[in-house]
């Protein structure tokens, strides 16, 4: 049958309709809303990316790094790290001075700055934020102790402050969080007047300032806000910081604006050597914050992050692994194209260590040191870093990262991280003899089943098979993995940690007998000599003697080999040239107040980015 003529007339009509439809669609898509401006074009806005959504903006229960990154612009702590100085130095933020410490190191008296106000909010009378007082710190720490609040930060204060554990016991008898009487006296946590906070410790805790009082969990929260918002306080932050929350579209976007009642601060006038040359002191003495707004977009995938960065819509990003070749040369420098686009590269050591851990409570591994050593010698760490991190990370010769004051500069020469397959085979033979039979297939728990985890698992499998050891890599989701480790049922596990303070204690506490699983000692390692030194060092302030003790403890651990330490991370960040004062910091998060945008440069560079695609 020939439908030719009829078909052509049909197509002709449809074409007209399609053209009309296309015009209508174009109007619909471009017309309504149009390209709404990103606010006032003269406004200084910082554009950041979060690679996962934040959980909440309540400092008392804040533990994930992304929530802390945002929350630290809104909330402030008593102490913070100096933005520029290295080694890292703690300075007063909401405190007037550094604390007065009693000779027995048990009583800390802290004077609070005057003239600090909570941001304006409907939770206050007339909507005007009131002045910050010492009682706000008392309330905020008691709130963490309140068991009905279910804070994930309680472990920080467990058995630390006189009377606080008893207060926690009392809260158990209350029916709800709101029923808890926070005016109840806690002997070790008092405000002697509106401007003086007194903390009495159960035993010396030299890390009180760095681990607790500079940690966002102790940032003061107004009782009025807690009472007014109840459980919804996670999305209604009321802080004293330089910024306040403007918009939070959960899962996608967060915008902070200047806090108009912020007391004002000045950009630091001193830094470390080389800061002036690097331009970090160009703004010395100027009032901060510089930016009017700070914006975070939640982008979980690398491609859109990278494309937005190349469009100039994001100020800084990590080096995307899929675009590594486009960004970096084999020598670890920026490619010509990146230089042409005025993109800057910043690399910085990260206080982290990653390892393949051995469960010392396991019947096969725990009593077999040659086996553990054989595994450690079988892993080519340098190759691992080249394969998985483009050669950017550092080999972990010990457990304390090089940026820590207690890092042992001689540790590399001691050869604990050496790759020696022949020695590994010899050790494996010894292990076989010690075990008394053929070694069973060992199991390695790896968190995650994504491509990276699988490749990592295959690398370990291949390394150990090369010396004649049979292993099975078990990929699992994070909760299953955590449960396995916490219940001491994992044999070997891939893990790592990042220190929250410049003190190496975070790493050493992972090997203290009393911290065994479900505590931080996931290795279930126990050595009386180590414990004795740990207890001795635990109450010591930062001094060369303590560093020496730390080094001795590190050697004890490395000799016993409860883990094959693999690598220390090296941060690698790209930013546009218009993004000023971008000095990486390993421990502080409230840094947006220091960042500045060179607006003229941004406009010029954006044109350049449009031209060169």
């Amino acid at each position, binding site marked *: 049958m020939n439908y030719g003529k009829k078909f052509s007339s049909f197509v002709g009509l449809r074409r007209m309709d399609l053209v009309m439809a296309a015009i209508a669609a174009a109007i619909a898509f471009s017309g309504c809303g149009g390209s709404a401006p990103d*606010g006032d074009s003269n406004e200084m806005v910082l554009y950041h990316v979060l690679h996962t959504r934040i959980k909440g903006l309540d400092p008392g229960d804040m533990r994930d790094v992304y929530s802390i990154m945002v929350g630290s612009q809104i909330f402030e702590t008593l102490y913070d790290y100096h933005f520029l100085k290295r080694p890292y130095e703690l300075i007063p933020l909401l405190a007037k001075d550094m604390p007065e410490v009693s000779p027995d190191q048990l009583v800390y008296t802290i004077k609070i700055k005057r003239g600090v106000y909570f941001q304006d909010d409907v939770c206050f009378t007339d909507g005007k934020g009131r002045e910050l007082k010492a009682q706000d710190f008392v309330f905020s720490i008691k709130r963490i102790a309140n068991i009905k609040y279910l804070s994930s930060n309680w472990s920080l204060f467990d058995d630390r402050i006189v009377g606080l554990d008893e207060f926690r016991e009392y809260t158990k008898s209350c029916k709800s969080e709101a029923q808890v009487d926070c005016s109840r006296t806690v002997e070790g946590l008092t405000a002697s007047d509106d401007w003086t906070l007194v903390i009495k410790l159960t035993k010396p805790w030299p890390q009180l300032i760095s681990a607790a009082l500079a940690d966002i969990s102790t940032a003061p929260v107004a009782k009025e806000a807690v009472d007014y918002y109840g459980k919804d306080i996670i999305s209604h932050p009321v802080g004293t910081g330089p910024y306040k929350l403007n918009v939070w579209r959960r899962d996608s976007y967060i915008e902070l604006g200047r806090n108009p009642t912020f007391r004002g601060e000045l950009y630091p006038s001193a830094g470390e050597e080389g800061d002036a040359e690097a331009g970090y002191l160009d703004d010395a003495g100027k009032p901060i914050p510089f930016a009017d707004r700070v914006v975070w977009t939640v982008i979980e995938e690398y491609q859109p992050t990278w494309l937005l960065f190349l469009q100039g819509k994001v100020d800084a990003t990590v080096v995307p692994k899929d675009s590594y070749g486009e960004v970096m040369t084999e020598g670890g420098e920026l490619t010509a194209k990146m230089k042409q686009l005025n993109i800057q590269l910043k690399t910085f050591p990260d206080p982290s260590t990653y390892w393949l851990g051995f469960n010392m409570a396991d019947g096969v591994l725990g009593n077999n040191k040659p086996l553990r050593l054989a595994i450690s010698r079988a892993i080519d760490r340098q190759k691992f870093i080249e394969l998985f991190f483009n050669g950017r990370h550092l080999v972990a010769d010990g457990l304390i990262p090089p940026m820590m004051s207690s890092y042992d500069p001689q540790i590399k020469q001691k050869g604990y991280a050496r790759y020696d397959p022949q020695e590994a085979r010899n050790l494996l033979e010894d292990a076989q003899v010690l075990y008394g039979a053929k070694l069973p297939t060992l199991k390695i728990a790896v968190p995650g089943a994504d491509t990276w985890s699988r490749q990592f698992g295959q690398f370990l499998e291949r390394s150990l098979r090369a010396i004649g050891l049979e292993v099975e890599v078990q990929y699992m989701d994070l909760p299953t993995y*955590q449960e396995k480790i916490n219940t001491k049922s994992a044999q070997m596990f891939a893990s790592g940690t990042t220190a929250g303070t410049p003190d190496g204690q975070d790493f050493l506490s992972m090997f203290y007998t009393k911290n065994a699983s479900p505590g931080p000692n996931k290795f279930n390692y126990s050595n009386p000599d180590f414990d004795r030194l740990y207890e001795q060092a635990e109450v010591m302030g930062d001094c060369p003697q303590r560093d020496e003790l730390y080094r001795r403890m590190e050697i004890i651990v490395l000799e016993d080999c409860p883990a094959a330490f693999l690598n220390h991370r090296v941060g690698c960040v790209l930013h546009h040239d218009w993004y000023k004062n971008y000095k990486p910091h390993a421990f502080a998060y409230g840094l947006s107040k220091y960042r500045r945008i060179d607006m003229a440069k941004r406009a010029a560079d954006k044109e350049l980015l449009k031209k060169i695609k």
Partner: protein
Amino acid sequence: MTAYIIRRLLYTIPIVFGVLVLTFTLFTVVGGDISLEIAGKDANRQTIDEIRKEYGLDKPLFLSWDSQFVNHLKNALTFDFGRARDREPIIDKIKRGIGPSLALTVPIFLGVVIISVSLSLVVAFVRGTVWDILAVVICVAGMSVPYLSFILFGQYFLGYKWGFFPVFFSPYLSLARNVALPVLIGIAAGLGGNLRFYRTVMLDEMQNDYVRTAFAKGLTMRRVLFKHVLKNAMIPVITRVVLAIPFLFLGSLLLERFFGIPGLGYLMVEAISSRDYFVIGAMTYISAILVVAFNLITDICYVLVDPRVCLE
């Protein structure tokens, strides 16, 4: 028909109950205790116990009026899903996500259906010609390209390189502009499979005698195709189209993630990766109700488009 509808509505009770039993068993009994995760990595026993109490995990699983299962049933029937693990009410999450999800999936759905049904009529009409062969080749090629490739190439070329669309969701742009590129990609990626399916349906229909008779009577081609052929081919079309509607509410997992559209697909992915059983349970329950409802609507539509079908 009324009796049929009532009977079908009654059938939904055991189906929904079954879904609730299944989700409860999977997440609570098989999935294990989540209090350890909620507590954080260094939490002590006391904190873990308190969390168990707060989330009702200390109650018996089944054999009590105040058991976890009975509470699960009560909450589901009253649509009181409680709070997610991040302490935000789940219903707020769903309300917030449904708009962006539908703004993305409805245009994709309509675009794919309208274009593929229209094109399938044309392609079926010119069957055996070079145009038909070309259309089939393009369809197969489109089906063979992974969905992710459509996204990556679309985002790179249409968004970044040529700058026709925004690369990523921006709250400063209208929703229409934000979803334009993902909608276009969704339509392009969905056309291949749909066009092939509808082409087969239309080909079957075009071979019937009434089509030849209609043309012999001198009817226009548009009238024959869109009034007669399309109407008679509606049963398989309706089956495919109406049953797809419940899934529109679930959003598009990949598109939402790559374009930052804060919809329900994204919510579901996040809930799965963080083992937020409270959110997964709520979403599964709502999906089950929608699937059952749209199954019933499909049956009713059969009667409306084809008088030969009778519901008994």
